[in-house]
């Protein structure tokens, strides 16, 4: 570790090969994956199901052991429960016997022993994701979209430098998805964390990420690595259709559709749309 490099290293993935043993046969899911992600970058991994994107995320968050290759998250290899990494799952995984607040606290307390500080942060986060007034609701009383918001707040309550999201909005309806994508963007801007998002929704990936890494089907290889140089801050809800004019940075504001802009403070001002 070079002196002064603390807190500046991103994610390094070098020649990662991973295979599963299924019914006697060995199945390669990741084939010589190399990828370097800068600190503070928002990278989306897209690809068909079975291309190993979740496995890659599992390796990064330490849930799956690295078989071959080299991976560095920050200055050290990935490990489960590292205080500087957070993981969000496709399903909300909320504990049904805990309220929305207590669910966020469940995670945050593992990182932060200061109850008072937790109280402030959690209230702020629940407010950020639009759950003001639902702090004491049990998961059963919340809609699926609202539960996923709690999970989003829980993930960011860890105040981690590296955030790994595994299809966090996959199970939601289109409208709720747009709203939550915006919430995610706002949280990311606020926390300035490095985000790796696994998605099968190309529009989502393009709209949110700085870079979209496209993976090919089994064995998973990187097929393309595309920089998305759309200006920030972005507002997802203004782009009702996937931006077709994407590569040319031509902006034409064809929004003004129904709910656009509502509840998204940064849209009205300096954000861009086309």
């Amino acid at each position, binding site marked *: 570790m070079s002196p002064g490099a603390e807190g500046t290293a991103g994610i390094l993935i070098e020649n990662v090969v991973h295979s599963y043993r299924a019914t006697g046969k060995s199945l390669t899911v990741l084939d010589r994956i190399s990828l370097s992600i800068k600190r503070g970058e928002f990278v989306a991994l897209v690809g068909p199901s079975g291309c190993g994107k979740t496995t890659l995320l599992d390796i990064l968050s330490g849930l799956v052991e690295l078989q071959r290759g080299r991976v560095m998250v920050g200055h050290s290899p990935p490990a489960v429960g590292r205080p500087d990494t957070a993981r969000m799952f496709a399903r909300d995984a909320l504990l049904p016997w805990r309220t929305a607040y207590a669910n966020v606290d469940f995670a945050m307390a*593992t990182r932060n022993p200061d109850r008072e500080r937790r109280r402030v942060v959690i209230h702020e986060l629940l407010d950020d994701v639009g759950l003001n007034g639902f702090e004491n609701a049990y998961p059963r009383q919340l809609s699926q979209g609202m539960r996923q918001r709690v999970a989003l707040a829980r993930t960011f309550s*860890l105040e981690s430098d590296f955030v790994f999201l595994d299809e966090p909005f996959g199970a939601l309806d289109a409208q709720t998805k747009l709203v939550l994508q915006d919430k995610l963007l706002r949280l990311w801007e606020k926390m300035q964390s490095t985000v790796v998002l696994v998605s099968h929704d190309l529009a989502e990936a393009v709209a949110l990420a700085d870079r979209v890494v496209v993976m090919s089907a089994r064995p998973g290889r990187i097929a393309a690595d595309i920089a998305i140089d759309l200006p920030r801050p972005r507002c997802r809800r203004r782009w009702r259709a996937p931006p077709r004019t994407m590569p040319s940075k031509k902006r034409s504001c064809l929004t003004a559709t129904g709910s656009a802009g509502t509840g998204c403070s940064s849209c009205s001002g300096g954000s861009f749309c086309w």
Partner: protein
Amino acid sequence: MIVIGVWETLARTGLIPAAFIGQPSKFLPLLVDGILSGKIAVAALDTLSATLMAFVLGGILALATALMLAVYPTLKELIDPYIDAMNALPRVALVPLFIVWFGLGTLSKVVSGVSLMYFILLYNTLAGAQSVDPDHLQLARSLGLPRRQVFLRVVIPTAIPSIFVGLRLGLVYTLLGVVTAELIAGGKGLGSLISYYSNTFDADGVFAVLLVLIVLADALSMVMTRVERWLTRWNR
């Protein structure tokens, strides 16, 4: 009311002899008399105290066993067949043995109750602990929660609803276990009263005590439901 009316008519007309099924107009006054004279209360108290002792003792033993088996899965595999075998034993057949081992007093009644309570709660608790959502375990893992914490804060809360099903069922079965022991061993409890009345061919007496038992079992079950509702209020 209708049941009692039909019952009374059947007994009066002799369609079914009153000696077999009793007669409400006879056992209801008998019941009131028993309540007023305190005879029922004394017997009920005796039965209830043994029931509560068995409930608490069996409950603690079952929870402790379940905890141990959940923490050491290998141990569970090892002793699972023995638990199943012991649970398959008909408890009524064991009561005479309990009497030989523990005497004619309260202890053999309590043991009889425990022998039912223990297994019911043990099975329910284990089933509950096994129903942990894999998503929750994954989350706990990703947060780096130590095993003990996972157990206390994920596994046990998950098992609470089935623990309560076990407690509620177990309480009623404990009462039955105690009454069964009383039927055989005698003493002061409600079971002994039933045994006394049925040995003197007094169907009215038997039904009077059975009514008391029904009310008791219902009341116990109701108390448990209340406590359960409060503790699992997130579940609604």
